[in-house]
């Protein structure tokens, strides 16, 4: 990680302006968006969008040709190129031919991507952005920090300062007044411009139409007042049919700004008359810049389904804290990381891909149905393949896989024994036991690992067996969670076995892009867990469950280890999450809990993997209620707690800031009991509460249920 990058994060986190508007916006966003989608089946809608855009992505060549032919037939000039430099030159040539001096622009990410403004300005042209946010950013000499809200990182005072300078008059920070200044100032530029430049939100091959979506009305003016209009369109904007406009137009305003529709939508098909009676000189530049290559990539093709709504930024727990500028490039947030890796270079994404905490929230909201975190992980994997793994990391993964040695080391470290503490080694452990204890206390490492404790728990003999997969935290730190799980399963008459050969689930390696290591973890675990004939493989750590159920298969597949797949699938079928299984057992009448006493109020934190990957969120709540708890929901219960595995080590300040929001939301419930289904979340939140001196008890659902067994 470059120190410049770490520095920019630290600055962003310390900048209260950022967390101001952005934080408020993202907090309100989910509710507003849900309202805008009322009566609409979002899953069906995004399936349709994904299908139409995926079709376009796999027929880019043909659609671009069809679009060009149809737009030309209507009188537009179409120029297609893969090369950003050619786009810039094309625009400059048009300007020269026209003897143009002034250009007005409506928002176009494609032109940002190729840094068109500075190029044209260097050639002596005056270029005015006319979208208010873009203009503010232009006056400030900055880059947009958000695809839809370019100036969200600035305050009204900042804007007043910029505008005062621009019009040579001291302005107050009254927003309507500032907006009016922009109207006045830009109106004369609209009227005097020789050329209008826009992007397009959709390009329809069937008809050669461009769709422009704005709220301010600037795109209409850009396309109407100057006699020449140049639209710069990334070819991922192509769709096959005119009717494909509809699903995109249904989702884009709702997802972008929680509107049913933006104030203006213009559908331009060929040149329309100018104000002097001539016909518009309409130029459409279809820009590739590696999009075709992306379309050829079986994994990244999916990213072309993006409709640039920016909801992946709005719901990202990291973005809301650091804003867009730490991403350093044109496109920001989750999808921005992916686009930067392609449009610039994979290497460029090295630092920023690390910002993703893999909470999966964006994936839920993406109207293009893109697995954004999955693609970021794939970037990580490719980076490791390209650059290799550091020796330290290699050493660590070797230790992690030697369970006894690992435990001994952790224990030594937790007792403060040298050399583990200051040798630097511990900071790299995937168990997050760094010296970083400023924001959260660390769990003490159990004197004996769970695998030893387990042997002392007498097991009922039963035909029905479950293998317990502990995972690192339960095995080494929270053995009591393991004991609670065993107690509950035993009570339902299930015999629990603990396969000794089980090792780390490989999540730390996988999330670091070290797929070879993760694959070895997979193979070792598959062998160990399928050794005995059991009905279930139970875990009480959702990250481990996801590994067992999905990621072993994914890792092995991506490395071409097909021989291991049948067994991996067999394990996946048996693997179950603790709460899910217990809910089944309760429903079957095999388990019950004590209630009757006054219900104990408690708030529940949804773990990312449990809620979004395994789709389990009602089950633990139901169980806790049956066990005599009253659930007081916290705000944003399903937003990440900042744990994210080794993220806590790599970006400790972001992790801590996310944790603080979580603690704040917990405090706001007024309840002093917290339950979560993930030992990692328990560690993070418990550690945070302890450091902050909150009288809040955080326990795993299994512990809470075990206390109330009938």
């Amino acid at each position, binding site marked *: 990680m470059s120190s410049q990058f770490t520095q920019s994060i630290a600055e962003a986190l310390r900048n209260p302006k950022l967390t*101001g*508007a952005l934080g408020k*916006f993202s907090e309100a966003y989910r509710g507003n968006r849900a309202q805008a989608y009322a009566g609409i089946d979002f899953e069906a809608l995004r399936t349709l969008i994904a299908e139409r855009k995926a079709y376009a992505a796999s027929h880019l060549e043909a659609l671009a040709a069809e679009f060009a032919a149809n737009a030309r037939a*209507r009188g537009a000039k179409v120029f297609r190129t893969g090369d950003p430099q050619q786009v810039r030159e094309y625009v400059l040539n048009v300007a020269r031919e026209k003897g143009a001096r002034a250009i007005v622009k409506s928002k176009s990410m494609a032109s940002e991507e190729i840094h068109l403004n500075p190029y044209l300005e260097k050639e002596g042209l005056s270029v005015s952005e*006319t*979208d*208010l*946010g873009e203009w*503010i950013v232009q006056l400030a000499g900055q880059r947009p920090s958000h695809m839809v*809200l*370019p*100036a969200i990182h*600035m*305050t*009204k005072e900042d*804007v007043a300062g910029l505008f005062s300078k621009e019009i040579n008059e001291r302005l107050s920070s009254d*927003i*309507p007044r500032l*907006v*009016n200044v*922009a109207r006045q100032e*830009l*109106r004369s530029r*609209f*009227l005097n411009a020789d050329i209008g430049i826009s992007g397009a939100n959709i390009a*329809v091959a069937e*008809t050669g139409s461009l769709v422009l979506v704005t*709220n*301010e*009305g*600037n795109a*209409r*003016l850009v*396309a*109407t*007042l100057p006699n020449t209009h140049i639209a710069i369109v990334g070819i991922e904007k192509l769709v096959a049919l*005119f*009717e494909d*406009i*509809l699903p995109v*137009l*249904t989702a884009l305003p709702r997802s972008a700004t929680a*509107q*049913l*529709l*933006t*104030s*203006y*939508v*213009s*559908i*331009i*098909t*060929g*040149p*329309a*008359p*100018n*104000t*002097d009676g001539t016909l518009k000189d309409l130029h459409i530049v279809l820009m590739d810049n590696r999009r075709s290559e992306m379309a050829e990539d079986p994994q990244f093709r999916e990213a072309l389904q993006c409709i640039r709504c920016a909801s992946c930024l709005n719901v990202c727990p990291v973005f809301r804290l650091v804003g867009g500028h730490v991403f350093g490039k044109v496109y920001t947030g989750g999808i921005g990381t992916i686009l930067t890796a392609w449009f610039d270079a994979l290497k460029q994404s090295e630092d920023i891909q690390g910002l993703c905490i893999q909470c999966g929230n964006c994936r839920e909201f993406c109207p293009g149905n893109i697995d954004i975190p999955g693609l970021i992980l794939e970037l990580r994997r490719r980076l490791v393949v390209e650059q290799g793994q550091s020796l330290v990391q290699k050493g660590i993964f070797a230790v992690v896989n030697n369970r006894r040695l690992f435990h001994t080391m952790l224990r030594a470290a937790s007792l403060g024994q040298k050399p583990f503490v200051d040798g630097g080694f511990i900071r790299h452990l995937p168990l997050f036991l760094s010296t970083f204890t400023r924001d959260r206390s660390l769990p003490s490492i159990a004197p004996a690992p769970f695998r030893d404790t387990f042997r002392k728990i007498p097991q009922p003999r039963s035909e029905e067996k479950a293998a317990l997969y502990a995972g690192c935290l339960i095995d080494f730190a929270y053995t009591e969670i393991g004991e609670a799980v065993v107690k509950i399963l035993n009570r339902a008459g299930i015999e629990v076995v603990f396969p000794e050969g089980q090792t780390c689930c490989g999540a730390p390696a996988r999330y670091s892009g070290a797929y070879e290591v993760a694959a070895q973890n997979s193979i070792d675990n598959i062998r160990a867990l399928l050794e005995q004939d059991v009905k279930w493989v139970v875990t009480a750590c959702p990250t481990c469950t996801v590994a067992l159920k999905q990621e072993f298969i994914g890792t092995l597949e991506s490395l071409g280890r097909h021989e291991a797949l049948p067994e991996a699938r067999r394990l996946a079928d048996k693997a179950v999450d603790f709460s899910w299984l217990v809910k089944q057992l309760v429903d079957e009448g095999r388990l019950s809990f004590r209630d009757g006493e006054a219900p104990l109020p408690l708030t529940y934190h949804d773990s990312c993997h449990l809620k979004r990957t395994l789709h389990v969120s009602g089950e633990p709540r139901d169980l806790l209620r049956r066990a005599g708890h009253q659930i007081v929901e916290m705000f944003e219960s399903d937003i990440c707690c900042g744990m994210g595995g080794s993220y806590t080590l790599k970006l400790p300040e972001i992790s801590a800031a996310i944790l603080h929001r979580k603690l704040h939301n917990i405090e706001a419930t007024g309840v002093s009991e917290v339950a979560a289904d993930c030992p990692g979340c328990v560690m993070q939140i418990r550690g945070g509460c302890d450091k902050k001196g909150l009288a809040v008890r955080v326990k795993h659902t299994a512990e809470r249920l075990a206390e109330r067994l009938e």
Partner: protein
Amino acid sequence: MFEQFKTRAEAVSAEVHRFATRAQALDFILDFLRSEGIADQPGAYALWADGSFAAALDRKRLAAQVPGLRFEITRDLAAGARAGISQVDWAVAQTGTLLVDATAVEQRLVSSLPPIHIALAETGRILPDMAAGLARFDPGRCAFLSAITGPSRTADIERVLTIGVHGPKRLIIVFIDEAGEADHQ
């Protein structure tokens, strides 16, 4: 569907009126222009773009009666106008949207440059949703299709909603129940 349209359009700050006859609608428009000081103040004027409603008017007489009303439209006039009047082709109830073939530049000028836009629509031309709306247009024959939903807006400064950036600050939608004689589609 009118009620749904009205609810949705008002939710995005449009003003919605409905009249049974063209004559009543015309009275409303003239009253409005007077009350805004556009009808007869020096330098203040409104531009009225072509449409079946305008075509049915005795424009000469009207222009003589109301000095602030003009039917010829140029870019410069539009830039100085206090209001623009135009007729739209369809309305969409689900989103409170107006749809108009704005290929003729006058249609765009009157609906984007003046601070007030008065849009005329026939009540019988309200469609349920955008799917029905888009289906009424043939992009092969319409070079510039405009969908208008409320006045121009921005939230680019501190996410505070502000009406009237580059386009109209007020959108006044006047529905007329009486159907036009000459269908303009």
